């Protein structure tokens, strides 16, 4: 059966090549038949990829250990759910998963937009076929999940214990959905360039894809952060690890893109920039996945060393060069509509500012992650930068973005009357000042924290104020409260969904400020001894052991008390999974309180005396990070939900802006 899988891969690759060729030729000769053939080829390639991945999944569930991949990433005792996640747990499987997702997205977009964006579809097919063909070819011949072993082992090696966690089950798929989802906006942009249809049609076609891909990236990043915090045990959720950064960079570019397209849709500006931005976002996706896999960086994520490096390098170079050439060729068509940013107090200026900030962040992260590699290649000297570099550069920009969130949505297109702005911001500003005073009275003295939290409060209140204004406007027309709120969100999903996303980001920012107040302590405790940190008394009661079929664990029983009152018990543990006896896993225990977490980890221990080396860390405001992420995703759901009325309004606008008639109505 593995041969079937491999055959499917090879066929899929061939079909992609066919699809690219047929569609390209069809586009150049305006041959509807060739274009249709290309489309069929891409759909068939998707079917082949589906077959290949199905074969892999079935092999995993059948415990077919003759396949190297199955042996390496699963065993007879791996829980059923995690057998599925083993599909993407190793290098080859994850590449196959990636290829399949890319093709699935490409095909879905192809089917949905075939008629609506007919002019773009041929070159869209070519681009998708080329990209997907690369990945499929890579899987078929360089990183083959269907490689066979010389003999049949009795049992498998087992899934890496670190991956046997619910967060880990969803983190890679979410990220991959985000990464591969960005293929569609990219391919649409390339198609727009190639076909010369550079009206905002490609933006309209890609809008929901970008939003959903962005949402999945956000979820993936959030899950990764949560997993790092809950499982890895170093007490934080973001380490500026090169592979974390590899996922963050496309996210930053995509966020900038999500905002700047609004300016093109509304006023026909930033047209060149939008094309550049989406190409940048997808290139960063490819660079990111290259970084993660080619053994260039070592981190908790790094896959095994493999030979795929040079292929990736070649592909990325070709992608970037090809895109740049296309943009260069079409430069004359990418002129902005007349007008421009007229004044600082305008929504356009705010979006410009927003983009400057995101690109600034992107540069800082890019430089810190990739420059060490380049400089090592050039000079042979090895250097590295750590969290201090990233935090120093990214935090101020993040703060500026939060501040911008307060003002931007209140600005009008083209210009804003200063009085209306002042009116809207007075109450939030005064309240923020009040909150600052309250914080000072409560004992917070850290100037950076005070400024940051004040800004968060300001932005939060300004955003809530905007929502409230909308609700009141509907109320004045006689609508009941609940109906007013629901209808407000339903009628203007993008705007008000966006506000909810912003609220999520503000909560997240407030949570991040908590990092300034982290307190930690380490000590070796005999049973009965205690340590004190941040007003908590942590008493070690002794070591406990437990034995389950697939895992043995040893934990330290810790009692957490504050002011004499027992708050709870923590049991940081050291687990040994069967099959991976040589890879013990230390898991932290977390007491989540409303305003801070008490986080405990056990290091060394002595079974005879019951002593344990305990590290306890208090993380203030970290709940804001998690709730912020939840609210963020909720807002994205609201914004992304299909909305008929809004779309009709937008279509009229786009038509007016010189998009002319929508592609389908143009004569062929």
């Amino acid at each position, binding site marked *: 059966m593995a041969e079937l899988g491999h055959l499917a891969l090879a066929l899929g690759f061939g079909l992609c090549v066919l699809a690219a060729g047929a569609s390209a030729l069809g586009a150049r000769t305006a041959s509807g038949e060739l274009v249709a053939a290309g489309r069929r080829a891409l759909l068939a390639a998707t079917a082949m990829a589906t077959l290949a991945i199905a074969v892999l999944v079935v092999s995993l569930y059948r415990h077919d250990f003759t396949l190297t991949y199955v042996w390496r990433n699963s065993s007879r005792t791996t829980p059923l759910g995690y057998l599925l996640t083993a599909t993407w747990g190793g290098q080859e499987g994850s590449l196959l998963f990636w290829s399949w997702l890319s093709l699935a997205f490409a095909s879905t977009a192809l089917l949905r937009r075939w008629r609506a964006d007919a002019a773009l579809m041929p070159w869209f097919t070519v681009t998708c076929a080329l990209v997907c063909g690369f990945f499929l070819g890579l899987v078929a011949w360089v990183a083959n999940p269907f490689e066979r072993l010389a003999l049949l082992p009795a049992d498998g090696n087992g899934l890496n214990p670190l991956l046997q966690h619910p967060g880990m089950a969803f983190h890679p798929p979410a990220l991959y959905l985000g990464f591969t989802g960005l293929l569609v906006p990219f391919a649409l942009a390339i198609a727009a360039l190639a076909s010369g249809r550079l009206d905002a049609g490609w933006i309209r076609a890609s809008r929901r894809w970008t939003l959903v891909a962005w949402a999945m990236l956000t979820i993936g990043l959030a899950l990764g952060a949560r997993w790092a915090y809950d499982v890895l045990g170093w007490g934080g959720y973001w380490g500026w690890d090169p592979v974390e950064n590899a996922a963050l960079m496309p996210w930053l570019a995509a966020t900038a893109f999500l905002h700047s397209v609004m300016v093109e849709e509304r006023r026909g500006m930033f047209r060149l920039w939008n094309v550049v931005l989406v190409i940048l976002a997808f290139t960063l996706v490819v660079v990111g996945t290259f970084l993660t896999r080619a053994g260039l960086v070592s981190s908790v994520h790094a896959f095994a060393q493999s030979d795929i490096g040079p292929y990736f390098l070649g592909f990325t170079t070709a992608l970037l060069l090809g895109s740049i050439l296309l943009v260069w060729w079409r430069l004359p068509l990418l002129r902005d509509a007349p007008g421009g940013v007229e004044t600082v107090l305008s929504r356009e200026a705010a979006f410009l500012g927003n983009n400057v900030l995101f690109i*600034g962040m992107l540069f800082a992260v890019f430089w810190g992650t990739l420059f060490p590699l380049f400089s090592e290649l050039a000079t042979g000297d090895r250097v590295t*930068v750590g969290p201090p570099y990233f935090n120093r550069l990214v935090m101020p920009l993040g703060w500026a973005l939060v501040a911008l969130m307060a003002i931007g949505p209140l600005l009008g297109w083209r210009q804003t009357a200063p009085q209306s702005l002042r009116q809207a911001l007075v109450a939030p500003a005064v309240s923020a000042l009040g909150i600052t005073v309250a914080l000072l009275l409560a004992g917070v003295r850290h100037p950076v924290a005070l400024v940051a939290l004040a800004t968060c409060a300001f932005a939060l209140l300004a955003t809530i104020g905007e929502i409230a204004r909308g609700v009141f406007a509907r109320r004045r027309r006689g609508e009941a409260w609940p109906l007013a709120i629901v209808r407000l969100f339903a009628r203007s999903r993008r705007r008000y969904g966006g506000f909810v996303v912003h609220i999520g980001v503000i909560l997240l920012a407030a949570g991040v400020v908590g990092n300034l107040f982290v307190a930690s302590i380490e000590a070796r405790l005999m049973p009965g001894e205690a340590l004190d940190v941040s007003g908590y008394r942590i008493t070690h009661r002794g070591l406990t052991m437990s034995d389950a079929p697939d895992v043995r664990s040893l934990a330290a029983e810790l009692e957490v008390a504050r002011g004499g009152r027992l708050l709870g018990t923590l049991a940081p543990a050291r687990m040994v999974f069967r099959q991976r006896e040589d890879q013990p896993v230390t898991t932290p225990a977390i007491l989540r309180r409303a305003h801070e977490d008490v986080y405990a980890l056990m290091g060394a221990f002595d079974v005879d005396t019951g*002593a344990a080396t305990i590290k306890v860390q208090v993380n203030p405001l970290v709940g804001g990070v998690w709730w912020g992420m939840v609210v963020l995703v909720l807002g994205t759901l609201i914004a992304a939900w299909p909305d008929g009325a809004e779309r009709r309004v937008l279509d009229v606008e786009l038509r007016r802006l010189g998009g002319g008639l929508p592609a389908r109505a143009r004569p062929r």
Partner: protein
Amino acid sequence: MGLRYLVGAVVILCAFAAISVLTYYDSEEAYFTVDELATDARAAEARDEGRTLQVRGEVDRASLDRSGDGLELRFDLVGLDGRMPVVYRGLVPDTFDQAETVTVGGRVAPEGTFVADRLFVQCPSKYEAVPPGAAPADGTDA
């Protein structure tokens, strides 16, 4: 008309890029193998100036000393011909026991011991298990 704002945006970005690069050089940490630490000029410079740096080498299991309050780990980091004693305070990563190569971050004390406050375990490729009947994978480092 809107050109002035676009130019302004570009100027601000360039300024920020310059700040990033400067911050980079300010925060960068050089990274050596144990052997290079003895011979490399930059390493000597970093050592004399008391700057933090990272050193990579293999752990000499025989020299492992976990005594003390369990918070301190002493071991020798070895290269092809270099040897460096390390004192590390902090929690030890799970994978330390199986790791051959580790990286430590910290400073070189005047008497030659490396005082480390960070300990990274590398070579995840070594955890790509070797299937029965196959030759061991060529475990080269990144």
